[in-house]
């Protein structure tokens, strides 16, 4: 089965694949996940760093016993890193891998190496 594309000819070049609808969808999905995730994680990290550098009094406010906001915030950096890692693994496995496998299988059968 040829790739769906505006013209009916089967796709054989990488440029052709790149402008195909299937690849466009994979690319779009990847961008929609990757960009906000990475920017979000970095933003969250720099928020923490800036707060620690410029607002140490806020970080020193106690939550429970000797455990203050700063320690909780630091621990949350670990939690968020682990959570994003797990989220990415699951997202890639369910939302990206099946589409990629389908497209790759077809391209490799179709002679594009």
């Amino acid at each position, binding site marked *: 089965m040829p790739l769906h594309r505006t013209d009916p000819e089967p796709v054989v070049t990488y440029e052709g694949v790149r402008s195909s609808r299937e690849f466009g969808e994979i*690319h779009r999905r990847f961008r929609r996940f990757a960009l906000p995730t990475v920017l979000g*994680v970095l933003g969250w990290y720099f928020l*923490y760093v800036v707060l620690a550098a410029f607002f140490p009094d806020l970080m020193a406010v106690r939550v429970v016993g000797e*455990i203050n906001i700063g320690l909780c915030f630091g621990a949350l950096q670990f939690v968020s890193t682990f959570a994003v890692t797990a989220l*990415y*693994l699951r997202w890639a496995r369910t939302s990206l*891998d099946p589409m990629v496998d389908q497209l790759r299988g077809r391209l490799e059968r179709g002679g594009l190496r």
Partner: protein
Amino acid sequence: MTAFPALSAVVAAASVGEPAVNISIFAAFVAVTLGIAVWASGANSTTTDYFAAGRSITGRQNGVAIGGDYLSAASFLGIAGAVALSGYDGFLYSIGFLVGWVVVLVLIAEPLRNTGRYTLADVLTYRLRRGPVRTAAAVSTLVVSLLYLLAQMAGAGALVNLLLGVSGGWGQNLTILVVGLLMTFYVLVGGMKGTTWVQIVKAVLLMIAAVLLTFWVLGSAGFNLSGLLSDAASRSASGNGVLRPGLVYGATLTSKINFISLSMALVLGTAGLPHVLMRLYTVPNAREARRSVAWATWLIGLFYLCTLVLGFGAMWLVGSGRIATAPGKANAAVPLLAFQLGGTLLLGLVAAVAFATIIAVVAGLVISASASFAHDIYAGMIRKGAIEHHEEVRTARYTAVAIGLLAIIGGIYAKNQNVAFLVSLAFAVAASANLPTILYSLYWPKFTGRGALWSIYGGLASSILLIVFSPVVSGKLDPHTGASLSVITDPGVDFAWFPLENPGIVSIPLAFFLGWLGSVTSREQVDTARFARLQVRALTAVGAARASRR
């Protein structure tokens, strides 16, 4: 093992613990890892075998090996020590080393595996003008690896001072020599496969030691974290100041901005470290590369959580005062804590783990530097690709020996210098010279060869120049004693004009800007066919399996 009796003969009883125990545990590690290197040497005929372990490492194994490659002695002893002396700010420092892995996982690991073969330069030249870009990437790979290498070798000298009571003179030199010869042997004989298994063994030992000590400390504190913190703070000269940020980085506006600059280098540098990225080529495909990074993240995160407890544990059980006056200062915190908790045997274990850590990291650095020289500079530039597998492997082996010698000489020369800044400098150079080009070439259609050259050389030159003219190299004086804290120890020499001790905040944005500027002002035609090939292959792995089998 002829070196060890000679070494132990010089070791005076002045040190903490029993050098014989330290040395015999370390000797056991050496024996096991030498066996591994010899076992791995069977399959090292092709470049793929030698540089990428025949792509036979599984994702989980590789994740553990990445942990072994990444967690240096500076992490194990240095960060826990920083927590023990300055509390919260040490913890703050460790977080950047972990968060950076998200960038590797989401943006870099899989495309890198799909489009490259052995080195960083492979990925860039997949779409850009080949020659000069390959050389530039190899140069920055070599610079980052050598900076990091020098820090590790000097650390080995400092460690022996601390653990065996050998200070100065030939005892330290001998240790540096032994470390240098060992890691050269692993790389020479075992190639990437041997290096990988040395790193796996080391990572397992390191994690066992860290988790064991952490539980021990928590157990001693009755599993009451709040109690541990307040007991620890009461043993510190700064009191409750150790529980909040600001002790180190909060003094002045300059030190705050310096900390932001350091954080940028740490969080963005991980994704540009050539010796870590090279590990991603040892797995069979991009999915395994993804798994590797996830495993590495779990391990590295757990490890830094342990260093937090170990640091406060050392503050509590050993006391900041004793740590600050011990030989090795901050680096002594974990060894002293281990001695306090479990006596000679536990100290011996920690000492052996620390040495194993240095050797495994150094072996990873040597193989990445020698691969880059043999594959990018010799095979790619000098021989223009007309080279047989075995010749390329032979060149890499010669290079490994040369780098090993360089590391031994450099380590001996730098052993009593203040070189702790080299690790964060390596991260800054990696974040400036490598990361922008990697990201642009993977994701930006209009990126050109000129943009890559401007970004790599601009990032490299700016980060190194700024360090040379920073207080790290000259003019930083101790406010109380007036003694110099810089690399140049003459307090009269001061040519520093850049106020920060880490160049990241300037050099990283500059390198991104230069990459953009070089590309948009270039007359070079963007090769859309090659970019299409890169993008399709990066995301879908079409044809990647065949290309990487070569």
